[in-house]
């Protein structure tokens, strides 16, 4: 009864606050920031896209922001399947499967090794491992080109030079410092107690890694994927030097198209080829979202 009266007395005019509005000033600010940042990021892409559909005559006019007067998809077709890159004139598609053949094992192995290293360094801390890691980190600062000569000699010595395994090994070598660091620091942020619990449960090195740590690593694996797929997919120098002529990645062709020194430069084809080549990493970026899991360690420990 009393409750009813109270309800009646309550002025109906008091509007109930909306259920979590989506247009608070803060949210508008967020979108404003994101959109303006996105615009800034997109300006070069805009120029690239516009350039890629202009005929060369228009490009020579020098209005880089202008929309094409006579848009053409010829440069794209050209880039994909017709542009000459030396004697062959089949665009960049020629090396596509080679790139895949190189990228997949290199990415998988380099991430796997990085994860294992990071895990061992963070949780098991074997004697001397930190020293090795320090060496690795210093090594990361050696310009890759300086390492070419010794690596060529070393791989030639074990007869892996100019072969698919050879290039994969090289990518692993170059990827290891950053992959190890990435995983090591990620694992350092996980609750140490989980590892202890698994140890009590009798988990050995590998078991804990596969059953416990790996499932908790999805966000960092995505980051590692982003880094390695991009680096390896886009690499051309290492592929050129180590892969052997049968395995040249698509970026060698890309480089041949866009990096000519004394020949004429077809900017429109260059842009199209560049965008085409980057589609694989771009697709990865786009679809990686669901692996950026929120609160991966929620509910694990109290305190």
């Amino acid at each position, binding site marked *: 009864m009393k409750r009813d009266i109270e309800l009646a007395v309550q002025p109906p005019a008091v509007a109930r606050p909306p259920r979590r509005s989506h247009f608070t000033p803060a949210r508008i600010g967020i979108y404003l920031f994101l959109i303006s940042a996105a615009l800034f990021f997109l300006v070069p892409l805009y120029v690239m896209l516009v350039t890629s559909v202009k005929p060369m005559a228009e490009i020579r006019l020098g*209005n880089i922001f202008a929309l094409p007067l006579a848009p053409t998809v010829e440069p794209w077709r050209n880039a994909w399947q017709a542009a000459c890159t030396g004697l062959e004139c089949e665009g960049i598609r020629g090396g596509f499967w080679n790139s895949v053949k190189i990228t997949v094992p290199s990415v998988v192995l380099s991430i796997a090794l990085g994860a294992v290293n990071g895990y*061992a360094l963070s949780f098991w801390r074997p004697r001397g491992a930190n020293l090795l890691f320090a060496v*690795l980190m210093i090594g990361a600062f050696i*310009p890759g080109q300086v390492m070419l000569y010794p690596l060529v000699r070393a791989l030639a010595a074990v007869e892996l030079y100019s072969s698919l395994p050879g290039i994969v090994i090289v990518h692993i070598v170059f990827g*290891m410092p950053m992959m190890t660091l*990435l995983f090591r620091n990620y694992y350092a942020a996980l609750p140490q107690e989980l590892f202890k619990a698994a140890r009590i449960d009798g988990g050995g090195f590998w078991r804990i890694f596969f059953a416990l740590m790996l499932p908790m690593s999805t966000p960092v694996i995505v*980051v590692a994927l982003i880094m390695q797929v991009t680096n390896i997919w886009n690499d051309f120098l290492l592929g050129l030097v180590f892969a052997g002529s049968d395995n040249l990645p698509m970026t060698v062709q890309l480089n041949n198209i866009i990096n000519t020194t004394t020949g004429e430069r077809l900017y429109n084809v260059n842009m199209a080829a560049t965008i085409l080549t980057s589609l694989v990493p771009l697709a990865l970026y786009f679809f990686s979202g669901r692996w950026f899991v929120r609160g991966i*360690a929620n509910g694990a420990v109290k305190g």
Partner: protein
Amino acid sequence: MVAVRRPGSSLACFSAYLALVPMAAVALGAYVLTILWTARVSVSSSRIFPAGDFVGLGQYERLFRNARWLLSLENLAVYGLLFIAACLVLGFLLAVFIDQKVAGEGMLRTVFLYPYAMSFVATGLVWQWILNPELGVQQVVRHLGFDTFAFDWIVQQDKVLYTIVIATVWQASGLVMALLLSGLRGIDEELWKAARIDGIPKWRVYVSIVLPMLWPSLSTAFMLLFVMVVKLFDAVVAMTQGGPGTASEVPAKFIMDYLFGRANIGLASAASIVLLLTVLAIVAPLYYARGKAAQRGRS
């Protein structure tokens, strides 16, 4: 007698050592060997091929007489500071804003990351155009009626470095965003609740609670960016070729020039060693300090 280990020994088991064999092989077989080899070459008179002679520190003396090398180091310091700071700040902001459960997250993430996927040979050229006073932004703004507008950093000796900062930040901050995002997402939701109860404004939570918790991710990002700085090459070649003059020369380009075009790997090796020692001088104290902090923090 059974399974007795000495006090103070670490946790490691046989598997842990086994698992680190590849890392040891890479660290010792690739990096240490390369460093030693490079050191050896740097005290020889090698040109295209490593030579077996010994010329003492001749290459180093030559190196430090070379004004371009000294300028490269100086440029690297200025560039490095600006680039790392800008990338961390922008990457963090992007990560934070994108973490607000915004619509179109996947799209935005891709937009911020795409520069990372593209060869700088092409995007560098585009930046060169955009920044060019006759083609790019300056021209456009002047066409809009602002006749005195000037944005010609890329042709100014004293400003050109900033244009490289802009373009490389554009390229790398997306990656920093992804890295920090992965860290952000790992933070326990309960902490957010606690902060909401405490009435702490969101930005403040990010600054005072989340940022310190992101320390591992930040340090990864820092190292990553630092390596990018030291290896900076593509962007400079694509945008300025080290110019105007030598105003945007950087050590990696110096090394590459001598390694390939100028066919003097002796000097290039000496430069690599100097670069490495410089890096070591910067990183070692950081590493040491962090190790100390970590020791206090855990175990």
